């Protein structure tokens, strides 16, 4: 144990779970604890019971029916996950307030919850084996900060106040200097203290090593643990969610754009990640209500990305080609192949384990060794992968360990009957997918009904006729095949719906984008000017428009051909884009004409910005084939005035200023105020029109 953690512990002020949480921790500290006791303890806390049932129902369920009781939830999630989830929730319940003035306990838990919900969703999408535990690990991944705020309220409050925007690593350095231990170490020690899994502690410590100096989690550790990836990604999404949602806010924009790295780490493209992020929002709102915590969800990830794309800010987030057959959640789907899957004929009755398919794994449970040997022998002769168990308990353990597709079990067995085995299997996530065949020498109507009620799929009479047994197994294989195809088709359908959404958005973006320069086109420019014009009237911010026209462009086209003309247009677009201010919007109006919209610009700043553009274009020669010349542009600047009635007046004013710049010799800036810009005197003509 870290010596400083021991000191923190001895103060008795560390965050601690509720009474129910504490009882659960004590009860489950040994491996052989009684399940019934765990369930009773959870039941004693109605709020906790509801939350555990909720998380069991929101976990990836593979078509399982919803659970309604704590016992069912415990069976579904497993005791380990229930223990972690109970601890996490009981900590939220009892540690919402403190005396550290500048440490906002509410915001701390809101951020933690957002991280946890994001991690839970990502865990489900990436088929992480235990989403509920990942939820808790994420919920508590910063609990060291809470602990320091509880033990040293005044000193930690001062540290927080003085380092409000500091990245976590910098904060940790200050903490270590002040307390001899940082919040990462406290988190890890607390997790160990509460008996949480070792991998949780590992995540806490690796996060400390995994932060770069800006606090953005971007470095690649070369195959870090999967849980760490999820927590790191979830935290990044939560930071975006809890940010300003102002595209102009460079810090938040940077966070948003870094989601691309999150997608890369999780093996999915940026657009798929954005749609997942949007799916996290309602889930977070739901959890916020259940736990009674305020949550901040901002806006739509996909819409924001589209807006950034329009403004030319998001190029890093979009792939240039739209590839549909991309890896998603570890599987590759091709468009329309799901229909082929469905159309493929099923195996004929006498054809088991079709060519190229792995043989079905069958578990046979039978307490009579002779019958077990016979059943296994018949199945092995048909090349099935056969597992055998001579008791129900052994069968249960093999079934959960090896997940066979088919289980064939005797009915009457000592300890646990075959029917009870089937009931138990049906309550587990793995067992819910198995095809269960019961072998029975009974077979009256009552028993048949009882068997089907217990979740059995089929039965075989005893003594069994080998041909009937194998025919039933064949039917089981076909049912499994059908289900798997339906599931694959459903996954493919969902994938296609997502792709369709992405495609629609891209088409919409394409309709507003100029194909040659990839800048927003005239349609977008007009729509945007209208929006900004209305915004200007609402908030009183200034609005300037600059129209840029390439000088003597006709000569380029006439002398060097249209391909050279296109190269000149692309080059000028690039230079203009590179020198346009982040808050300005550059669009191609058509031909050799561009427009720059500047929100909040004064006449002077607009002219200065225009001059910067003019100089940038002039400074770089364009090379294409025989063409190797510097081109120049003329710019007309206009700023909105109270006399202007519509935005058309503003554009018209900028157009007139441009005309003036052309008239005055080109390669210059003129403003609608009448006088040329302050630097225009220094400019000179290079070409004639």
């Amino acid at each position: 144990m870290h010596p400083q953690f021991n000191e923190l512990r001895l103060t008795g002020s560390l965050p601690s779970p509720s009474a129910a949480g504490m009882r659960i921790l004590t009860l489950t500290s040994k491996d052989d604890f009684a399940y019934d006791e765990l369930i009773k303890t959870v039941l004693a806390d109605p709020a906790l019971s509801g939350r555990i049932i909720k998380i069991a129902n929101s976990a990836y369920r593979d078509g399982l029916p919803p659970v309604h009781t704590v016992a069912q939830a415990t069976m579904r999630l497993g005791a380990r996950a229930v223990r972690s989830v109970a601890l996490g929730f009981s900590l939220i319940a009892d540690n919402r307030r403190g005396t550290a003035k500048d440490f906002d306990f509410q915001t701390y838990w809101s951020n933690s919850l957002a991280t946890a919900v994001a991690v839970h969703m990502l865990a489900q999408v990436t088929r992480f084996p235990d989403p509920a535990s990942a939820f808790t690990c994420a919920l508590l991944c910063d609990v060291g900060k809470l602990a320091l705020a509880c033990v040293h309220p005044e000193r930690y409050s001062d540290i927080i106040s003085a380092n409000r925007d500091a990245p976590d690593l910098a904060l940790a350095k200050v903490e270590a200097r002040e307390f001899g231990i940082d919040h990462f170490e406290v988190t890890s020690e607390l997790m160990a203290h509460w008996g949480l899994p070792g991998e949780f502690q590992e995540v806490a410590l690796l996060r400390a090593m995994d932060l770069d100096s800006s606090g953005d989690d971007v470095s690649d550790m070369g195959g870090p643990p999967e849980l760490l990836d999820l927590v790191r990604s979830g935290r990044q999404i939560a930071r975006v969610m809890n940010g300003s949602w102002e595209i102009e806010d460079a810090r938040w924009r940077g966070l948003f754009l870094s989601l691309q790295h999150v997608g890369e780490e999780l093996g999915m493209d940026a657009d798929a990640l954005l749609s997942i992020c949007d799916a996290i929002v309602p889930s977070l709102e739901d959890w916020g209500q259940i736990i009674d915590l305020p949550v901040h969800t901002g806006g739509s990830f996909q819409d924001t990305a589209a807006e950034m794309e329009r403004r030319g800010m998001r190029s890093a987030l979009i792939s240039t080609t739209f590839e549909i057959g991309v890896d998603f959640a570890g599987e590759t789907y091709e468009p329309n192949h799901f229909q082929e899957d469905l159309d493929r004929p099923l195996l004929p009755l006498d054809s088991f384990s079709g060519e190229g398919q792995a043989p079905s794994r069958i578990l046979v449970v039978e307490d009579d060794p002779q019958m077990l040997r016979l059943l296994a022998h018949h199945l092995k002769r048909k090349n099935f992968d056969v597992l055998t168990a001579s008791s129900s308990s052994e069968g249960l353990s093999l079934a959960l360990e090896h997940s066979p597709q088919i289980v064939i079990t005797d009915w009457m067995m000592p300890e646990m009957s075959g029917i009870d085995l089937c009931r138990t299997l049906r309550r587990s996530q793995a067992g819910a997918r198995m095809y269960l065949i019961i072998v029975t020498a009974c077979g009256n109507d009552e028993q048949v009904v009882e068997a089907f009620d217990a979740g059995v799929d089929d039965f075989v009479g005893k003594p069994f006729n080998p041909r009937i047994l194998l025919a039933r197994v064949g039917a089981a294989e076909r049912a499994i095949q059908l289900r798997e195809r339906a599931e694959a088709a459903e996954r493919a359908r969902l994938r296609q719906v997502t792709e369709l959404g992405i495609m629609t958005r891209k088409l919409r973006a394409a309709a507003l984008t100029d194909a040659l320069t990839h800048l927003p086109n005239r349609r977008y420019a007009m729509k945007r000017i209208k929006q900004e014009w209305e915004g200007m009237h609402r908030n009183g911010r200034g609005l300037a428009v600059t129209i840029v026209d390439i000088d003597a462009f006709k000569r380029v086209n006439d002398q060097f051909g249209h391909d050279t003309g296109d190269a000149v247009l692309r080059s000028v677009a690039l230079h203009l884009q590179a020198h346009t201010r982040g808050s300005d919007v550059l669009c191609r109006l058509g031909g050799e004409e561009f427009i720059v919209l500047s929100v909040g610009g004064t006449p002077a700043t607009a002219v200065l910005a225009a001059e910067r553009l003019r100089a940038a274009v002039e400074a770089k020669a364009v090379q294409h084939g025989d063409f190797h010349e510097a081109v120049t542009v003329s710019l007309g600047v206009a700023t909105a005035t109270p006399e202007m009635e519509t935005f058309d007046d503003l554009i018209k004013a900028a157009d007139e200023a441009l005309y003036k710049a052309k008239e005055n010799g080109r390669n210059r800036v003129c403003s609608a105020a009448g006088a040329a810009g302050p630097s225009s005197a220094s400019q000179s003509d290079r070409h004639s029109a």
Partner: protein
Amino acid sequence: MTPIGKPMTMSISGDSGGLSAHIHSPGNGGGVILDANAIDVLKELGGDDVEFLTEIIELFLAEGLMRVSEMHAGLEGLETGRVLQAAHALKSSSAHVGAVEFSRCCAELESLCRLEDQGEDLVLTGRRAVAMYSEVQTALKALLALS
């Protein structure tokens, strides 16, 4: 009625190596003790594994002896549940080694166990089953010796 545990005299008819012959019991009214077809099925199922038939028969004999002892104890103590369990298990396993008459007797015994008023039939049928097992055991051992 054959007394429990009384040794049987038996004959094996047929000349196809003994294993596929019908085996008759003089003590059972000359009925078939082992069905040759079932034995053939087991042989065929074993394929190249020549030990398979022997293994199945030995498994039956080991398990059968235990079950019949249970059945016997159940009959002596009039514990219907024990008799039923044993009869139920033997009904299926004996059929797979061709002991069809014995299997039918076990089925009959199982049905009697499920009746509310079993009367004397339960004990009588039980004793018959125990005696028949002895015949089956002897016949199977003879088959093993021949193989």
